[in-house]
């Protein structure tokens, strides 16, 4: 398969998961740069051009709250999961687990079929 096509499919698959990862990571208050680093440390690299617009979108949907604060002599915007965001995160996690389980079922059935 064309590596570019695979990369596009991979990015498409990750796109939806990133929302989940951002919401999950923001159960603890963080600002953009540290959030990006946290995600990268867990194998979820996200560039700033994707992260900041995503944070704004989630905030405008009421899933995150934010505030500007000074830390280490520099003003930073800290984000935190809102109570509505916590409910949505639980729902999304349930959905994600359900998808994961369905895919496993499909794979298991096909594996039995080829035995």
């Amino acid at each position, binding site marked *: 398969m064309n590596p570019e096509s695979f990369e596009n499919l991979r990015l498409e698959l990750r796109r939806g998961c990133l929302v989940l990862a951002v919401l999950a990571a923001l159960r603890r208050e963080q600002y953009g740069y540290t959030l990006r680093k946290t995600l990268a440390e867990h194998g979820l690299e996200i560039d700033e051009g994707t992260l900041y617009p995503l944070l*704004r979108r989630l905030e405008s949907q009421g899933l995150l709250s934010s505030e500007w604060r000074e830390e280490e002599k520099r003003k930073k915007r800290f984000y935190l999961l809102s109570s509505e965001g916590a409910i949505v995160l639980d729902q999304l996690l349930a959905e994600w687990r359900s998808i994961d389980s369905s895919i496993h079922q499909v794979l298991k059935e096909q594996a039995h079929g080829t035995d």
Partner: protein
Amino acid sequence: MELIERYLQAVKFWLPRRQRNDIIAELSADIYAQIEEREAELGRKLAEPEVEALLKQRGHPLLVANRFQPQGYLIGPGFFPVYCFVLKIVALCYLIPWLLVWIGLMTFSPVYRAEQTHSSWFAALGSMWASFFGTAFVVVGMLTIGFAILERMQDRIHFFDRWSPSKLPLVRDPHLIPRASSSVELAVNLLFFAWLAVYCHSTEVLIGSTVRISLDSVWLWFFSGYLLLALGNAVLAANKLMHPFWTKRQAAWRLLTDAAGAVLFCLLMKANILAGIAISGVPPEKTLTIAHAINHWMDTLFPASIAVGLVILAVNIYRILRLQSEPEPLSA
């Protein structure tokens, strides 16, 4: 850190006005945090080329700013394929024929060519391009505006919601020849054959008792040609009635008769076929003027007839190529 300020300024220009300062403050904090971390790792200040590389990695300011903009489009993904389809139809049915007629006029009409190239060929090409571009610009512009309005009105007219599977077009078999069209073709060719045989078998054609048309002696060649052609077309139409599917043989015969018809028609346009017209009660000098005018117009329309002939041949060739690329129907 002038580079960073320049980068932020470039991004800021393209940001939505209300969020501009907020986004830039956050982006600035992110860039400086990254630089500070890198400097802590290296134990020294970053050199300007290193800062430049870091900014370049973040992407073009326009792209960075675009990600903060709401997704906007003139013609949305729903209407875009229709827009492209209409543009292709316009190009095929209007702009390309326009170009072909111009080429035809320049090739076959000395009067038109002289008018256009009175200063130079270069000027003629320039004038043609200006006229062609102007026409294309207006047509494409009007279509684009029309579709953009349709896109904006979509929420109100609910174009994509108001449809029913039962109103979709019937399944079309590209190989099928409708029996109705074969019947019409057969009738028209038989009538044409009979009309030619009864009324046009000589160079003197009478229309009622008041009009007599005198044709040039070359007409007798055309008469035989058209008679044969009408007969051939009638036989082909009868065959299509019995076997209503295109086959390679049917398509090849159709190409042959259409090519013969196109050649005959083009030659007729150039033949100065009208020798005279006599209408009772009309002075001969006036009817002669009418005959000359008709001959002149036929001559002038010669390039257009070539263009039409070429289009007909192209349709026939396309049909044969399609039959070659697709399997013939079993029922043929």
